[in-house]
């Protein structure tokens, strides 16, 4: 019995290591999020053009127009060229992950990074088990999520529930449970999955709802060279 349990633990550890290698070398953390993936691909390719980055949820994505912030700052002699890296449903912990990835290979021109404080670690139950919610979560993100959840003023039942949700999401993503076929499809045929719509018409990451509506009425989504 002891040997069987040890073997199971050994096998689970081995598979976890294999999956971490897959994550490190083959899966970008944004693969499950169509909008954010296009933005990060664009940002990485053009990062020297920007001195600032806005990271946030839909509030920032849909309302922070880099054209306006750039022009106001430039009036005061500040070299401010911003990229809007916000995305729908991107909560605080997800934003921290985006910032960490940006700072892994920072552009020497990057001087300002803004993070939204408008969301917590709570999320809609319907988003559990979705590739977009799970694909960015590492073990350290789970620890951070649980710590923050326990700092919130919530009933203990809620804290336990969300801690459990983050734990199973980390396992899901840690072992790529049910995700890998989708990931291979997305990364080998990006034109079937991703769209550069989220970059907006000025390619600065700002896409107001009225601009997006026009694309929906046309019933097409743009794909630029960087994604295909």
């Amino acid at each position, binding site marked *: 019995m002891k040997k069987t349990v040890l073997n199971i633990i050994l*096998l689970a550890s*081995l*598979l976890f290591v*294999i*999956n971490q290698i897959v994550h490190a070398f083959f899966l970008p953390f944004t693969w499950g*999020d169509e909008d954010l993936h296009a933005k990060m691909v664009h940002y990485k390719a053009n990062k020297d053009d920007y001195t600032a980055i806005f990271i946030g949820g*839909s509030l920032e994505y849909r309302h922070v127009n880099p054209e306006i912030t750039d022009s106001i700052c430039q009036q005061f002699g500040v070299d401010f060229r911003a990229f809007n890296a916000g995305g*729908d*449903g991107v909560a605080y912990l997800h934003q921290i992950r985006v910032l960490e990835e940006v700072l892994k290979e920072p552009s020497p021109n990057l001087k300002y990074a803004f993070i939204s404080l408008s969301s917590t670690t709570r999320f*809609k139950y*319907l*988003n559990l*088990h*979705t*590739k*977009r*919610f799970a694909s960015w979560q590492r073990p350290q993100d789970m620890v951070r999520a649980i710590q923050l959840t326990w700092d919130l003023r919530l009933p203990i039942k809620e804290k336990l529930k969300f801690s459990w949700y983050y734990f199973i999401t980390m396992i899901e993503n840690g*072992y*790529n*449970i*049910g*995700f*890998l*076929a989708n990931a*291979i*499809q997305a990364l*080998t*045929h990006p034109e*079937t999955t991703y769209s550069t719509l989220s970059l907006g018409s000025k390619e600065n990451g700002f896409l107001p709802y009225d601009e997006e509506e026009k694309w929906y009425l046309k019933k097409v989504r743009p794909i630029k060279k960087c994604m295909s």
Partner: protein
Amino acid sequence: MYLGEANYLTEMVYHKGITHFIIAVGAVLTLFLAEGIMKDTPMEEVILKKNKLFRWTTYSFLVLCICWFGVYGSREFFYFQF
């Protein structure tokens, strides 16, 4: 009009992407191949006769395939906020 015009085969192959189709076909071929090699001998008998390295590689491969390519009813991200 002929049957091919309805594009049933194309739709069947591409509706979830070519990757899913290749994985499905590959899995079926692996099943036939394994059946052909093992014949009526139970799988565990064949594997237990092999050395440790082969056994662990097989276990890892099987569990990874179940994890990676299994269908667990994942859904699309839900976003609705004002």
